[in-house]
């Protein structure tokens, strides 16, 4: 069953002489429960594609379909709800609020959703436990190691029980042991909760663990596998 689909998606940055086509006609389909790796060289347009799939950005031309409905028709309010409750994001940089505690950071999506009190705390603590950071709940985000920060990001992404997790280079800056740990967490979620995973990476090992790879070069799909 098609969860996300793109038809002839392009994305052009800038105007005039600085005009740059980051994506040039992307057609692809991602099914519910898939685990997909988007691979390619730096600057090939992976992050741009992921942002468009995650409805954080709009294609210049072409269209994106979510559950076979064109996403251009989604109203702002519904879009905010999707971002908050259906999608989970792990960004290339961590984007944690350095001054806040781990708990506060993980609670952020719940805060935005308007969840309060005990429910908010319980859910956040459960997510923190899922990534094995129980001992750091009260620590400031700035006082964590890179791997721990990334785990906080994953906890934040899964705290609202999303259907899809988008992860942009989740193991980009981490050593192999830590990477493995992060990968295990993600694939465990994929298997246990049937969460669709869309992972941008240039790590071939991580890509191999996904059921499918989509290779991007200069803004176009140049190859990939379908298992």
């Amino acid at each position, binding site marked *: 069953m098609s969860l996300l689909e793109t038809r002839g998606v392009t994305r052009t940055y800038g105007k005039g002489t600085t005009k740059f086509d980051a994506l040039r006609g992307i057609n692809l389909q991602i099914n519910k429960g898939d685990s997909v790796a988007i691979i390619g060289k730096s600057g090939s347009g992976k992050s741009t594609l992921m942002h468009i799939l995650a409805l954080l950005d709009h294609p210049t031309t072409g269209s994106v379909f979510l559950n076979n409905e064109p996403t251009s028709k989604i109203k702002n309010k519904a879009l905010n709800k999707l971002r908050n409750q259906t999608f989970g994001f792990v960004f290339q940089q961590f984007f944690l609020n350095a001054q806040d505690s781990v708990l506060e950071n993980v609670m952020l999506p719940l*805060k935005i959703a308007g969840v309060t009190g005990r429910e908010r705390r319980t859910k956040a603590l459960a997510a923190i436990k899922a990534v094995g950071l129980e001992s750091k709940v009260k620590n400031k985000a700035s006082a964590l190691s890179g791997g721990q920060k990334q785990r906080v990001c994953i906890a934040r992404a899964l705290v609202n029980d999303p259907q899809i997790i988008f992860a942009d280079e989740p193991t980009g800056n981490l050593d192999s042991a830590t990477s493995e740990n992060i990968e295990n967490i993600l694939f465990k979620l994929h298997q246990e909760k049937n969460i669709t995973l869309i992972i941008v990476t240039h790590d071939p090992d991580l890509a191999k663990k996904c059921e499918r790879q989509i290779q991007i070069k200069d803004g176009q799909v140049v190859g990939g596998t379908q298992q």
Partner: protein
Amino acid sequence: MRFHDILNSAATNLWHNKGRTFLTIIAVFIGSLTIAITMGINNGVNDYLKKQVGNVGKTEQMSILPGSSSQDTNEPQKYNTKKSSQNADGMMDKNDVKKIKSVKGLKDFKALKDCDVDYVQGPNKTKYIIIAQITEGINYDLKVGHQVATSGKKAQILITKPMVKSYGFKNAQDALGKKVTLVTKSPVTKKKAKISATVVGVRNDSIVSKGFAIYSNGLGEKIIAANQKGLPHALKDKYVSVIATPVNKSASSIKKVEDNLTKKGYSGMTLKEAVNELFLTFNAVTGVLIVFGAIALVAACFGVINTLYMSVRDRTKEIGLMKALGLSKGKVFSIFSCEAILIGLFGSSLGLLLAMGLGSAINNFAAKSFLKGLDGFTLIQFNWSSSLLIIGIICLITFLAGTLPAKRAAKLDPITALRYE
């Protein structure tokens, strides 16, 4: 996002940038302080006026005198029918009264004659000169007793507090019902006449007819009769003033009546205007303060705008993240508006608190110096409604100033914001 989370986010951010927040608050604080003091003075003055004039009734009653143009200049004045040397002495005759009565928009005319009294004697027989006037029919502020009769033949008098002791009464209560003797003489016959009057009340210190004793209508008539004994008939019609009531009590129509009187060579002023004139100095002070406060608030607005732009810049990534996580434009706008309002709230409350402190210090000083003798005049006063109004207005101003940066934050595109370095 719930309201308390929005508030929390705003407050936390203000707290994280303590120095910046503090500096912005100072400008708001100064504006609020000066405006609160101004309001305090206004309250104090109004409260005093209410005490003094509020129960007087008939504050729109107008007293009409000959035009004062002859005293305004040292140059000899050209003669015309409106301006003769005869009425330069401040007295009016029958013709004047007739002319005044012809002015439209006035009713209930009463021409008051002069009553000259040589001296007055109380129980201790000491002779005192007296400044007094016939009742204008208003309610004088009394410590004890009741008002004098405005018609009829009863000879009654209201005396002032200092007169009580000097005339030889034990206290104000003791004076009630007792007699004083007024001695007057006719300028023609030079014969003395003794008129006795009953004290029916003792006046409080007041800015209305300050220091004047008040005669009843009957007492006034008796004194005038004694004054005019032997005077040729034509000279008897000398009036000091005419009192009248405007038909329409709105400020604009009263102004019109006064303009018409001026054209005819007279000047009219209502009791209210006369009292307000006494407070011109305070109005000048509050005027300067208001201007100062307004300037401080304008400066504060720029401070708030600047601070919030800095805050939006600092938090660009955070805003991008929150928007990516589904926070709506409206909520982002609220977070920054909240920050602005909190600055306004802290600044204005602090300003108000200091104004209250300063106010009581100034009041203490004033009571011992320049307001000595004005009973019941507390210069600076605060009340809940106007204090809350000031806080409310300042919060509104800071909110409005904050809308510019808050709008910019709300419009941020999440991806651009996340890429922001």
